[in-house]
């Protein structure tokens, strides 16, 4: 193969058709309350880990729902399980369980 001095950029677009929905479905079965998330961001605003790292739990959930799971494993390690997110959620979503279920399913799926 010829070296042109650059390579073809990889796509960043979310390709929903090709993405991994298995982890999403598994996590949603484990924690159905995630379905009622309205993405208001209250969780992220109050998040202890988010004060000190780039952790954004609202985004973690959104990425999961779009099947963009490739960098979630690294992300969820930042959560400290303090539970403030759950306390403020206006829809009563069990967000601690999101992280636990993600740990579990990413492991099972070898991600």
């Amino acid at each position: 193969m010829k070296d042109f001095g650059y390579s073809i950029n990889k796509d960043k677009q979310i390709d929903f058709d090709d993405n991994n929905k298995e982890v999403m479905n598994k996590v949603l079965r484990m924690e159905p309350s995630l379905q009622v998330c309205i993405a208001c961001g209250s969780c992220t605003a109050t998040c202890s880990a988010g004060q000190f790292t780039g952790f954004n739990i609202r985004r973690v959930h959104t990425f999961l729902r779009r099947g963009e799971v490739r960098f979630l494993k690294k992300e969820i390690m930042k959560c400290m399980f303090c539970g403030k997110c759950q306390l403020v959620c206006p829809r009563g979503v069990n967000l601690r369980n999101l992280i636990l279920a993600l740990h579990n399913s990413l492991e099972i799926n070898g991600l």
Partner: protein
Amino acid sequence: MKIEGKQMIWKEYQKEIASDNFFYVRSCVRQNFFPGSEKTFLRIMRDELQKDVFENASHTTCSGIGYHSDIVPIETTMTMIARQFALMTEAGKENFTTSCITSFGLYNEVLETWHHFPDVEERVRQNLLKATGRSFNKPKNISHASDVIFHFRKEIADRGKFTLTDHRTGKPLRVVEHIGCHYSKMFPSKGVGGAEYPYVLAGMIEDWGGEVIDYPERRHCCGFGFRQYLVKANRGYSIACSKKKFESMESYSPDMILTNCPGCPMFLDRWQYAISEMEGKTYGGNGQGIPVLTYEELAGLVLGYNPWDLGLQVHQVPVEPLLDKMGVPYDPGMKFKGANGEDLGMPEAPSYLNFYPETA
């Protein structure tokens, strides 16, 4: 796909296209990479259609590539454009036609700005006068050269010797079109057919016997992106955009890609080569590429011009498969010869792209 739906939109976007007495300005990219196309445009207009197309040797770039790669300020570009208008005015012309889509977009953009901000126009007039002593009238009609060919597409078909059909089966050839972003994305009403379903190339394809193939990434940019190609470090973006289009059109097995803008055919042609060298992938089946043509080249083929007069030999993706389908005769031995048949050597064959079909 319901064609009536598109026809309805096409009706909404009819633009006025002048039919004679043009002031013609050339394109930076087309002159370098498709000189035969500009030659062919003038040949069709002057020799076939007996139209008056005037070119002033002193006209220049509009500086559009510089402007869109942001090294040339808007004030400078507007004044460069004003100078072109001044040359047109001095030539006694009112119908401005340009070989370049970036220019076409900029001319429309600048006129739009002047319309909303007359003080800006006044300043440009003063600057032009100060720098060159010239003054100008605004054109009555601005067209891209493809608008003009579109305008005369039926006349061309009437004189045509070949059609966009497979001469062995009689079936229409499958053509994907690529419009070029600045043709109508900024000002939909300035382009034939608007921004979403431009008709400028589709109309030529239909009237010359082909079938227009719509594919999902039809509207995507070829990836030029000005600075995104000009600087080598950025070309991974440029090629990725074209690749996205090839991947999207591949399953439709198009016989050719027809283009509007000067830059797009160069990129759609060269990136097929680069992808083949980087990934071993070709898009036309049997190691072949998908031939990419300019509208002038296609018009020339329809009219029966010699493919090597049109400049089809300077394509990296060989066009012979298309010529064979259309039944256009050509002399392979003359492909890379000079004007008087002199030997200019032969280009090297790429590693994967089938460049010399007869030796394959």
